[in-house]
């Protein structure tokens, strides 16, 4: 065991402070909430409806956009072309845009005056205030998580294996589905869960696209605004527990076995 230097002790102290900043508010919130109030909140229909809506819209949006994000991630991992950096930049853009601004952008894109809004309207669908609109707003801000993880996953698959598969008479489509995708799957699944979890916790863009029906982050805001901190706390705890569940499962999945 190497001896700890005074410098290391200072670093450990600073690191401990940082952990405290994250853990202390969460712990105090959980400790300040009684089990009874948690149980009551978990049985409240408005709460359960919002949680179901949040999970379904985020999952639906993640699933839908993964059909576009994964193929693009593969192309970005394998091909060199002009404008590649530009595409990377565009994908990462939602990370730096304020989420309320992103909400305004999405709203403009799906409102009844827009091309997409008009098209949806013609089949009797109003995207604003609709779960599809919510899913779009969630996906808009969370897509970089899936895309970047998938691209990194594909980049880690040796090109040699794909070449060997081609030589073994697999079509490029078959190579993708039997070699590239399975070997990048851990990374893709972890990106999928990240995007899903990030979508669930999204407030800024969702509140602009759809105040109703209420997703859980919007409901927390609504209850806090109307009834105050004590009333909003139990629902916040319930929602955090649900997010934690996904976060822990993500950590378990990405705790990758070393592959040769």
């Amino acid at each position, binding site marked *: 065991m190497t001896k700890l230097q005074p410098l290391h002790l200072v670093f450990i102290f600073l690191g401990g402070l940082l952990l405290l900043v994250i853990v202390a508010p969460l712990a105090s919130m959980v400790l300040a909430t009684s089990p009874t109030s948690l149980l009551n909140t978990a049985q409240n229909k408005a709460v359960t409806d919002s949680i179901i809506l949040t999970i379904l819209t985020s999952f639906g949006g993640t699933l839908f956009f993964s059909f576009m994000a994964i193929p693009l991630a593969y192309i970005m991992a394998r091909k060199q072309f002009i404008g590649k950096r530009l595409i990377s930049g565009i994908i990462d853009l939602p990370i730096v845009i304020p989420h309320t601004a992103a909400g305004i952008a999405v709203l403009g894109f799906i409102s009844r005056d827009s091309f997409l809004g008009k098209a949806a309207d013609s089949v009797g669908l109003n995207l604003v205030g609709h779960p599809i609109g919510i899913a779009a707003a969630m996906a808009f801000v969370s897509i970089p998580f899936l895309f970047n993880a998938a691209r990194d996953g594909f980049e880690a698959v*040796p090109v040699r294996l794909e*070449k*060997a598969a081609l*030589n*073994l*008479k*697999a079509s490029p489509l078959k190579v993708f589905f039997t070699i590239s995708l399975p*070997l990048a799957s851990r990374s893709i699944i972890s990106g999928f869960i990240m995007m899903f979890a990030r979508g669930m916790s999204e407030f800024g863009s969702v509140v602009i696209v759809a105040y109703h029906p209420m997703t859980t982050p919007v409901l927390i805001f609504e209850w806090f605004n109307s009834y105050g901190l004590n009333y909003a706390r139990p629902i916040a705890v319930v929602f955090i527990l649900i997010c934690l569940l996904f976060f822990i499962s993500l950590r378990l999945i990405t705790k990758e076995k070393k*592959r*040769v």
Partner: protein
Amino acid sequence: MLELRNISKQLGEFSLHAINLQIKEGEYFVVLGMSGAGKSVLLEMIAGLVHPTSGQVFINGRDITNDKIQDREVGIVFQDFAVFPHMNVLQNIAYPLINIGYSTSEAHLLAKGYAENMSIGHLLQRKTTTLSGGELQRVALARTLALKPRFLLLDEPLASIDLQLKDELRGLLRKINRSGITIVHVTHDYEEAISLATRIAVVHSGKVVQVGSAEDVFNAPKSQFIAHFTGVKNFYKATFVEENSSLAEGKVVIKHYTSVQEKEGYLMLRSEDVIVSSSHNPSSALNNFEGELLDFFPCIQGIELMIDVGIKIRAHITHASVKSLDLKVGKKVWVSFKASAVKYVPHS
């Protein structure tokens, strides 16, 4: 016949220039060159994984340069084997069979047969990440041979194999070749080339500098590169006589040490290991011959002598030794070298 006509490829820092090769059906053809000479890319161009900048590839007179990878009758085994890590041994070998239309159960049945042929029948359910280099090599070979390719391309197949397994794998490669599959094998190891090749092509600085049998290439190297590359100036076809002795070129018995008991092979001796004296001096060296000095010519560090002792032996000595021994063309001299200085490479 597999034919490369004027194949050129620009590859960043180095390039291949106008490569012309004709590989006959049934041959064991070795492409010999230093690491980074573009040998692997040459194989990938034959397999269609890399497109040449210019030139064409023909199989039996048919231009396949622009054919799809899947339509060529060419199987390639990569240096790192490229065995699929997410499949077990059986799934790896069955993979190409499923690709050409066999059902999973048929493919598995056939794959078991190929695995048995490669002596890996007991590894079928093993995860490939737990296999040794030699085992991975056999999986890769079985998988490629399952498609019955006419041409088998091997990229440094013995490079990541333990020394003790190399002989075994050489035997396996010869067996595959004898079964009628033409092999194109690239390597940087001249012993491997001598041991396996019907013909050798030497690639240097992006060009083919010589094509011929092992005797042609090592006895009459057409470039300084080959001579320097191996460092071996004395190279003889050898027939096994008895333990630790072989008959060189059918003329002179040379003593050497070997663990291999094969009838045919080659003997190699560095010119630096040959001692020249004006009379017979008893020493620990087992090989002592009297011969006639045929010629001497200067080389980078001294003089190279050509001495006829029944076979021609090249010896490398200093200018000072030439003077002190008073060497002249036609003079009788004694040549000696230790049995341990002689390298025997079997070739059947």
